[in-house]
Each structure stands twice: as C-alpha cells, then as structure tokens.
C-alpha cells in the first residue's frame, strides 16, 4: 500500500480510494496509528465479516474496483503489481 502513496494522488480528483483492514484484531486505534505513521491521505477502516464475505476477501493486499454506477469493474485481485499496473487500474477505472 505504501506503493500507492505517490500514484494515487495523480488520480485522486477522479477516483476515490478506501483502505479496508481485514484483520479483525486490528481495530480503529491501530489503524489510526498506522495511517498517521505512514502518512496515508485516504480514508482507512476495518471491514466487518459481512463485507469480507460479500467481496470474497480471503487474503490481504488485494483490491476490487467499483465504477461510478456501483457496478463491480474488477473483482477481487492481488495488489502486487508495478506502478504502471496501478496507473492502468486507475485510468481504466476513471474511464469506466
């Protein structure tokens, strides 16, 4: 996620970004401390069980994209990719 600190601001005016913690043991205080220490600009939260089941999230460092109409643009996938790969993700999501 640190990788996105420099990439996301390039698309922040057109695409929203929400970081969702998947470890139920990491509550709001942990997340808030982590955000502060890393200097993330996007909102961060902790997922509940329903959300993890609805989006079929079984691993960390994964992502899903939703277009402006609320339709799944890309289902859950691994977030291990290059900077250009992320840029393409943002651009395609912006044009969707």
């Amino acid at each position, binding site marked *: 996620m640190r990788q996105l600190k420099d990439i996301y601001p390039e698309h922040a005016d057109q695409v929203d*970004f*929400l*970081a969702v913690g998947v*470890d139920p043991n990491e509550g709001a205080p942990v*997340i808030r401390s982590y955000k502060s220490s890393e200097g993330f600009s996007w*909102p961060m939260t902790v997922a509940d069980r329903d*959300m993890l089941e609805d989006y079929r999230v079984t691993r960390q460092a994964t992502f899903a994209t*939703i277009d*402006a109409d609320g339709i799944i643009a890309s289902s859950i996938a691994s977030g291990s990719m290059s900077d250009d790969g992320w840029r393409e993700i943002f651009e395609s999501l912006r044009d969707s």
Partner: protein
Amino acid sequence: MSRFAKRLRFRALALGLALAASFLVACGGDDAGTEAPTTHSPTEGAVTTSPATRQPTQEAATPTSATEQPTEAVAPTSPPTQPPTQEAATAAPATQQPTEEAATPTPATQQPTEEIATAPPPTQPQPEVGHETGQRAPNFMLTTSDGEQLTLDSFQGRPVLLYFFTTW
C-alpha cells in the same frame, strides 16, 4: 252592178267586219272578264307555287329549329355535367371525411404517447448483487479511523478502489 255581185260585196264586208271585231277584241280586250283568268292563271299558279317554294324554306327553318333542338339538347347535357360537379362537391366532403378521420386517429396516436408519458419509464434490468465483474457491488457500512460513517452510496457518482490490507 248585178244583184249577185252586191250580195258578195255585202258578205265580204260582213266577214271583214267580223274579223276586225274579233281582232279588236283580241287585242284590246283586257277588261274582258272571261279571258283574263286564262291569262292570269299561270301567274296565280306561280304565286301558289311560291308558297310551295317557301315551304321548303319553312321546312328549312324548322330543320334549323330542329338543329337548334340539338343545341338545346346539348344544353341539357350541360346540366347533367353540373350535377356531377355537385356530386363532386358533395363528394368533396366525403373526401374530407377521411381527412377528418385521419385527423381523429392522430389523437388516437397521441394517446399511446400519453400512455407512454404516464407510464413509468422502462427500467433496465438491474444486475444482481455480487462480487463478480459486472455485478452490482454489495453495499457496506463502515466506520473510518476518523469516526466517519461510510457506505457504498457515499461514493455514488465516482469510481472507487477498495484496497484490503493489514498493518503487518
């Protein structure tokens, strides 16, 4: 002179007188009523024939009247031509009636448009909620580390990237 010669001379004078009298009668007798009709009769016959010659003229006049009759007969044909025009005039409303009927269907065609206008807009089939691409994203309600409530509707109108992470 002898008595016999005197008789011959008398008879000759008498015959001469008789011939002279007949000659005079024949030449100067216009006032005589007996012979006049015989002399005028041909002229009267000509007069009588003149009407006979005029009769053809009258007959010719009547044929002219007969020829005028055809013209009058043509005139009656012209009135029959007018009734068709009147019929055409009466038929004109009949032709206008379809136009009126055509005008009346237009409201009938407007009715469907009104029905369409009053009918609810056809709703596109909404995709099912799911996690696959093309499905409607499941809604969620989360609280951010800053205490802000977020739902999927909070990002309505803007695309969003959900990134799932751990701090370790």
